[in-house]
């Protein structure tokens, strides 16, 4: 036991040595973030507390205007649904990626990344065409007996498009987590008396939790701030939080109120990250338990 501790400690020392120099490498990125990210955020928070009057007036107004809370809840629910749906679709896809031959895997990866290389606007307009009244989706649903279902302008229509946009952000973290799982563990579970499906549930799924958490939080947070897709495919009655913020800034010139909404959104995002890191902490420690302890 003593030897392992000593080894771990000396490894730790080796790891710390280049850290002093490494500080210089992160300087450009830090400077950029300070000027173009933290300063504007600080301004937004400041304005939300000072315009038009100093105090929490903007925040209390959010609670009482009858719209903001509703939009915030709708945004959170939409983000949850999008993240959950993406997870359900991406999980078997990522699992298949770990099972196929390298060449097939390359093809599957390209298929996932394809949307990345297509303009977001182009994809949104494509969805617009698909979802509009008389479009292919309505006609197809009509064929199988669901008449008059128009997705355009509904939360469902927005959700479908957002799931498609978000898929790569779920598939890639899931795949990288699943790739780490030793397939022999399922053989081991089988030999110990677990049928295939139970081995999967008791061994594989828990080991893929880190990938699920990082994919889920990534998609959830990105969906919270989505603007173009809900603006194009949704409707004013079903608007999400970024549309409301945009409207306040560009039409009402209510910088204070928009700032307050933005700050609340940021708070929610940080809260989600905190919760996920709470769940993900022990799971992440599994990988390198020897050196970290």
């Amino acid at each position: 036991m003593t030897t392992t501790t000593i080894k771990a400690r000396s490894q730790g020392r080796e790891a710390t040595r280049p850290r002093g120099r490494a500080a210089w490498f992160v300087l450009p990125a830090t400077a950029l973030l300070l000027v173009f990210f933290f300063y504007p955020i600080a301004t937004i928070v400041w304005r939300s507390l000072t315009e038009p009057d100093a105090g929490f007036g903007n925040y209390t107004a959010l609670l009482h205007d009858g719209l903001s809370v509703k939009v915030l809840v709708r945004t959170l629910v939409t983000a949850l649904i999008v993240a959950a749906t993406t997870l359900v679709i991406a999980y078997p896809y990522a699992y298949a990626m770990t099972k196929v031959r390298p060449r097939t895997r390359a093809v599957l990866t390209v298929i996932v990344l394809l949307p990345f290389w297509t303009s977001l606007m182009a994809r949104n307009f494509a969805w617009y065409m698909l979802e509009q009244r008389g479009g292919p989706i309505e006609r197809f649903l009509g064929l199988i007996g669901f008449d008059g279902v128009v997705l355009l302008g509904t939360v469902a229509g927005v959700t479908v498009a957002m799931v498609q946009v978000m898929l790569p952000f779920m598939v890639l973290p899931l795949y990288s987590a699943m790739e780490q799982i030793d397939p022999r563990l399922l053989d081991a579970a089988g030999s110990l008396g677990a049928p295939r499906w139970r081995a999967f549930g008791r061994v594989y799924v828990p080991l893929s939790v880190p990938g699920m958490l990082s994919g889920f939080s990534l998609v959830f947070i990105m969906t919270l701030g989505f603007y173009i897709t809900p603006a194009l495919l949704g409707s004013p009655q079903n608007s999400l939080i970024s549309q409301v913020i945009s409207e306040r800034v560009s039409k009402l010139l209510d910088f204070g109120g928009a700032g307050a909404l933005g700050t609340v959104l940021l708070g929610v995002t940080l809260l989600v990250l905190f919760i996920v890191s709470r769940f993900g902490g022990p799971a992440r420690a599994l990988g390198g338990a020897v050196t970290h302890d």
Partner: protein
Amino acid sequence: MNPNSQEAARGIRIKGVSKLYTGTSHPAVDEVSLDIADGEFMTFLGPSGSGKTTMLSMLAGFVSVSAGSIEIDGRDVSRLKPHKRDLGVVFQQYALFPHLSVTKNVAFPLQQRKTPKAEIARRVAETLDLVHLGDYADRLPGQLSGGQQQRVALARAVVYEPRALLMDEPLGALDKRLRDQLQREIARMHRELGMTFIFVTHDQHEALTLSDRIAVFNEGRIEQVGKPADLYERPETLFVAEFLGESTGFRGTVDKAAGILRCGGHELRAPRLDPELDRCAGVAVVRPERLKLHVDDTEVHAEHNHIGATVTEIVYVGDRHQVGLRFADGTKGLASHPVGSPLPAMPGEGVTVSWDPRHQAIVRDHAGGPAAPAAVPAGA
């Protein structure tokens, strides 16, 4: 039911089992048949790619059988899923569940069997004591050394008292000291549990020290099955002779009627020859410790074979000298000489090598055709 008939059927029976992977032309396992007795320690020994691990995977049910059948206690299990075979498996890379503590890993198979909680706790504790890991019950596998992880894997594979324990190169990932230590523990567990152990390795020392019987695998087939001493002293094929331990081979042609192996101008006495080998190219295989070294042939026992050679090197290995030899035709040989007695020759000098013909094994030459040029001392 008659208990005797039940007794007779106990054990594992491999009947003409083959495995042909799709997209390959040579079977990985080629019509292997083997009976493994109840409680036996059987080792599959062979180089990588010899089919030993594939055979084990078919026993465990991870790999399907292309032809033949596997019976456990008279029941055909060839088509059963792994979880219904009631076998324990230990993998080279441990395959512990990284998200479960040591206790939960060992409890896993018992939970699958719906064992009552109190009994699970008792048996897990007992089994962890058996592998001396009682103090590590709450650790995660990642916090243990390789040797400790493999002992957890052993505990997990025996805690539910499976019909047999299969081990796939379980010591392959460990350093030498740990390997020796765990080897002794595996031998002890076999004694204490009385369970059938099937052990796969490419390490001849592991095979010789642990096994009741060894099956030597080569190119998908079993070359020979036998007790360690039988395989070492009486190899039936050149492959077994060369794979298991060091040896010197004298190539020649078998003459059954005269009871000799003709090596060029030399005649080696060869009693008890296999009739099938008559007039075939044969090799007389002799282990290093059976070769005696003499200054000349005057002191050679009348009934022993002897051949002249040149000493190429002498290596002191503590308990003996390893003496490298070269015969007239260039064949290399190896003798071990006790440290206590004086060396009859130094490197570069001539020496006479003798051995008792009862300690040689005559096997068919690889080529199987006419005799190759043999070890013929020029001046003899």
